[in-house]
């Protein structure tokens, strides 16, 4: 467990990296956080598909700019919550099982406490009172939002009454979607996520053993065919209704890995605006069919290769954390334990919408500043042909503000003359476990970061610093508490200059 008071337990935090530039602006971190830093879970955020107003139509940017799951930039600043009001599901997927009572794992479909729509409405107010970054409430299960239409739409109705400025979204497998597009419009749900793992039933039959549709259970190829047709129809109907659609796809090596390029083409043509290719989670301990039959998940490199291949004129989402169906907080963190049903009444009573408005105003200014800083650094790199990967330890806000030892994930950016682009996150074990160093975690951290040229952190101890250097990864703490993109580019420029210096000496 990560504990803010344990930060002093980091040993040997001497900062020595070379050439710290002297004149850098340091802008204070948002003071809008109420509660203490998150307990457990990683509290970092990352920038996913790197979009900003510049490379996106204005009407779409307006819809996604505060949505952490739809905009990589927003997910530095805004928080989401899922309310677990939809336990039933109408299909069986081989990567899912029906156990939902584990507080210690984070993956889609898992939840600790089912909520009634009334409890969910109260929970939203409680979270909004405690977390001013909250901008979005989604219904993502633990089953399928639209396999529980009465509960899902009752929840939306209650939220709209009590906190009308909160954006609503839902995710679905698409089977029941065509039946509910009108209602989705009625409740002003402007974002829908459809999980589409195939556009060919031949592939689909290896992912979905059965579906329940029109009062009948269908199996195998027939099931996959119906599901595919309903997904495509639903996607087209949402697009026609002007509702933004994100498509999630689970990358299953050997089953749909090559096929996902085709999926990408088809969903793009049908109007999806963002594609999120996620790795299969198949730990045998979860008891899923794939887990029990030894189906492996993809490596980080395989995932990135496919994402790179699919990234043409369509946004690829790379910041997805595959959250639980009751996750609360910034992406990558989960504060759901602070909002169990016994505490909701007391917290909800303190709800004050002005705190969230003040936070949004702050973020607008911060973002403009961040972009200007990045543009300035980018200009200095014009003409450089090299690229490098840089890992960053961050707790959110778009800044390098986490100790190396406290990071439970690192965000990875590709830096080049084109700018700093977020390309993924790497989950790791904490190096610093409650005040003492966890030497055993280091090999797996080095492994997770092996393709990175540097790791940018707020602080790092002497031992891990030496180990990183020995592995050819440069530990950098010169940019503590500064903007991620601008700092990554500044580091890159320094590296190029150092290299040039070395070359000219040789010459």
């Amino acid at each position, binding site marked *: 467990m990560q504990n803010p008071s344990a930060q002093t337990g980091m040993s040997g935090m001497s900062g020595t990296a070379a050439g710290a530039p002297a004149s850098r602006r340091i802008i204070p971190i948002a003071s809008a956080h109420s509660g203490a830093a998150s307990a457990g879970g990683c509290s970092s955020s990352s920038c996913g598909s790197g979009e900003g107003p510049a490379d996106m139509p204005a009407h779409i940017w307006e819809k996604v700019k505060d949505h952490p799951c739809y905009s990589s930039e927003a997910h530095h600043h805004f928080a989401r919550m899922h309310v677990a009001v939809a*336990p039933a*599901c109408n299909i069986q997927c081989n990567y899912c099982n*029906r156990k939902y009572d584990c507080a210690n794992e984070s993956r889609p479909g898992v939840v600790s406490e*089912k909520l009634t729509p009334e409890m969910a409405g109260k929970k939203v107010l409680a979270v909004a009172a405690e977390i001013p970054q909250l901008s979005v409430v989604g219904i993502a299960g633990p089953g399928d939002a639209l396999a529980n239409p009465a509960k899902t739409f009752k929840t939306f109705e209650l939220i709209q009454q009590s906190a009308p400025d909160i954006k609503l979204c839902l995710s679905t497998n698409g089977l029941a979607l065509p039946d509910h597009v009108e209602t989705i419009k009625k409740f002003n749900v402007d974002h829908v996520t459809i999980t589409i793992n195939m556009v060919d039933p031949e592939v689909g039959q290896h992912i979905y053993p059965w579906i*329940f549709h029109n*009062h*009948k*259970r269908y199996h195998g190829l027939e099931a996959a065919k119906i599901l595919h047709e309903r997904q495509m129809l639903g996607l087209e109907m949402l697009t026609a209704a002007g509702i933004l659609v994100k498509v999630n796809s689970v990358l299953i090596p050997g089953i749909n890995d090559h096929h996902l390029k085709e999926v990408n083409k088809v969903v793009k043509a049908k109007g999806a605006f963002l594609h999120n290719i996620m790795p299969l989670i198949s730990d045998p301990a979860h008891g899923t069919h794939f887990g029990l039959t030894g189906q492996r998940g993809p490596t980080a490199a395989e995932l990135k290769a496919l994402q790179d291949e699919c990234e043409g004129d369509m946004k690829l989402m790379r910041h997805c954390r595959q959250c639980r169906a009751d996750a609360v907080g910034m992406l990558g963190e989960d504060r759901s334990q602070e909002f169990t049903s016994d505490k909701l009444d007391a917290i909800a009573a303190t709800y004050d919408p002005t705190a969230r408005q003040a936070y949004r105003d702050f973020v607008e200014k911060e973002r403009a500043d961040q972009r200007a800083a990045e543009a300035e650094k980018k200009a200095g790199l014009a003409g450089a042909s090299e690229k490098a990967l840089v890992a960053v330890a961050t707790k959110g806000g778009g800044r390098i503000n986490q100790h190396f030892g406290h990071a439970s994930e690192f965000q990875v950016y590709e830096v080049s003359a084109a700018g700093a682009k977020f390309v993924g996150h790497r989950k790791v074990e904490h190096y610093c476990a409650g005040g003492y160093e966890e030497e055993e975690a280091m090999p797996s951290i080095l492994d997770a970061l092996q393709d990175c040229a540097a790791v940018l952190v707020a602080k790092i101890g002497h031992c891990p610093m030496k180990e990183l250097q020995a592995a050819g990864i440069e530990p950098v703490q010169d940019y503590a508490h500064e903007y991620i993109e601008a700092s990554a580019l500044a580091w890159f420029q320094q590296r190029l200059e150092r290299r040039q210096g070395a070359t000219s000496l040789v010459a």
Partner: protein
Amino acid sequence: MAYKINASACTACGACEQECPNDAIYEKNGLFAIKADGCTECIGHYDDPQCIAACPADCIVVDKSVPRYQA
């Protein structure tokens, strides 16, 4: 009056409850159960018993302690 829910395998998702044409399934203390005198095995409603077809946990079985439903 013929089906029952195996409570140890039930995940309490409620998929069966919303499909039952007889409103014979109810939730009590977080567990679902079938009212034996309300269950018609879906005879006259659908080809397949809806609770069994919808149940993701496959935990609904014939209740042998009561006679099969006669339409």
